[in-house]
């Protein structure tokens, strides 16, 4: 599904990623953990195509294509989805309008017919229920005045609607209270499928109690220092990042 080889990236003159190697097979969930400033968010941003970052070396192969050559929207059409750490407000644009435009943009490029208003509404109501979101969400402006938890739920709602093949979830657990964490976690679990891979970027282990990853990687100073199964997350929780890095 996704093969990251020797990926180097920088912002301005500052190198952030210093040779990332990662293989994600279809159906797997990988968690990337690491201290602040380790490059976790940079990795997901580079994979989604944000152009603030300059890739200086390495390659990323996604389903046989050179991912780094694609525009962000082309990546979306190819099934890549990024759940933002800080979802962006779009004043004046109703959430339902964005959701429908997004779903139909992706469908168009997958050769699927456009969803009519009625069909879309039926689909979105189903997903709202899963995320325990009120229908009023649809008629609010995109992320405007949303609480932290509402924004994150909205991201996972979008993921449910867009049905990506590769989901990049950037700190989806930050800013969530216990209940919201459970709802978001279950939302992610529902998306588990043999055809779908997930890259979960997180600072804490608590989301991983709900969404159990197949692999956990520790990212520090722009490199993957350690990889293991889900027990590695628990070890991190006990010993902290410093303990791991010293080891």
């Amino acid at each position, binding site marked *: 599904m996704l093969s990251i080889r020797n990926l180097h990236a920088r912002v301005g003159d500052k190198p952030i990623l210093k040779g990332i190697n990662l293989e994600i097979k279809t159906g797997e969930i990988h968690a990337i953990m690491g201290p602040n400033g380790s490059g976790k968010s940079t990795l997901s941003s580079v994979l989604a195509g944000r152009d603030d970052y300059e890739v200086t070396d390495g390659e990323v192969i996604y389903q046989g294509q050179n991912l780094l050559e694609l*525009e*962000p*929207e082309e990546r979306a059409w190819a099934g890549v989805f990024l759940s933002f750490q800080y979802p*962006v407000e779009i004043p*004046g644009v109703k959430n339902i*309008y964005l959701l429908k435009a997004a779903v139909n943009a*992706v469908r168009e*490029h997958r050769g699927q017919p456009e969803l009519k208003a009625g069909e879309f509404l039926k689909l979105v109501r189903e997903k709202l229920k899963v995320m325990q979101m009120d229908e009023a969400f649809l008629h609010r*402006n995109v992320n405007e005045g949303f609480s932290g938890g509402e924004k994150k739920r909205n991201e996972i709602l979008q993921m449910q609607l*867009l049905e990506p093949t590769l989901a990049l979830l950037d700190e989806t657990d930050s800013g969530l209270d216990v209940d919201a964490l459970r709802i978001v976690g279950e939302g992610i679990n529902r998306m588990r499928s043999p055809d779908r891979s997930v890259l979960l970027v997180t600072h804490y282990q608590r989301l991983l109690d709900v969404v159990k990853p197949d692999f956990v990687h520790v990212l520090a100073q722009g490199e993957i220092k350690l990889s293991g199964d889900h027990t590695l997350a628990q070890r991190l929780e006990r010993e902290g990042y410093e303990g791991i890095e010293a080891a």
Partner: protein
Amino acid sequence: MSQQEIDQLVDQDYKYGFVTDIESDTLPPGLNEDVIREISTRKGEPEWLLEWRLEAYAKWLTMTPPDWAHVDYPPIDFQSISYFSAPKKQGDGPQSLDEVDPALIDTYNKLGIPLEEQKMLAGVAVDAVFDSVSVVTTFKEKLHEAGVVFCPLSEAVHSHPELVKKFLGAVIPQNDNYYAALNSAVFSDGSFVYIPKGVRCPMELSTYFRINQQNTGQFERTLIVAEEGSYVSYLEGCTAPQRDENQLHAAVVELVAETDAEIKYSTVQNWFAGDDDGKGGIYNFVTKRGECRGDRSKISWTQLETGSAITWKYPSCVLIGADSVGEFYSVAVAGKKQQADTGTKMIHIGPRTRSTIISKGISTARGQNAYRGLVKVLPGAVDARNFTQCDSLLIGDQCGAHTFPYVEAEEPSAQLEHEATTSKVSDDQLFYLRTRGMTEEDALNMVVNGFCKEVFQKLPMEFAVEAEALLGITLEGAVG
């Protein structure tokens, strides 16, 4: 005036060094009393109107062009402009769409304008079986039944002289400003609308359907009178670019709303904006004003301004009647090297008069966009209220947004609110939408349309759709 005299006039103008290849139905460049007499004669106007024009001309001569707007352009040589161009006969226009500028056709198609309508807009000669002709006919019959008068001003001068005489210049006096004075002296044609007492106009009045819409000159003059308890919604302009050989457009629009009457005036302006360096393009110097004369009367101006090299335009409301309401909803776009200085004036005279101003300015490329607005509350306008919101959106870093709000409140019980914001279309917003599968252009359109939504909601439905499409076309290439 004899041909010989006209020839002399031409010769006289040559001393200014202008040689123009003139079609036979266009007056030579230059402005003087004889030119005004000639215009009036050619239009077969009554004596009183000629006198009115001459009076305006005399006032214009004593005035100087305004220099306070936030726009920059070389002085206009008013003697180099031709002030009369007879409406071309149908046979003179392009004979088929093949003869029309392909760029124009391209725009029409993007806007989804039907083919037959495209022909009408492009001024293509059409034969008698053309669909729209019957549309126009049914349309006229329906209005006639309701007692609504909707015709060219030049026709109204003959068919309803007493009304024209009564209201012409009643809201915007001849010497109101430099360009209004010029318009009063030389105005070519425009619309006349009269809604009798208690009549709700059965349809939106659109200049699309006005039969002589094509080739209306550059000095349009429109007069709308809504009698007691009547209602009319008037749509002005065309959502496709009207390429125009003329540089200066100085139009005047006057609205009169009597007791309990309501006038809704919507404009989509897309004149030629000039090239990327500001060459060519229209100077759009327009005076628009409405008087809410009666109690509880209401006038709303809604505008989308995307075209013109320079826009200088302040549709205003004079709120005389008690409880009368003035509204101004505006989206102004300045791209390329366009300059827009636009806004409104709300003059509160009557008690409990209310006004709302929502202004959205969008600047891209090297565009300069200024909001200029005056809220004036005179003594006695007890409990008058105004709400003003000015938002500016910047795309790129070479453009500018400016806000010049003026407030003159002389009534202590008045309540005025003003909000202003300036924002940039952020890379974060565009990236967010692109990761959701939208192209960069679609993403920009979504952000911009969201920004304009409050105003577009005020446009009549089908106009709003076209406005969104037009905005999309205008912003093509604004990012990337």
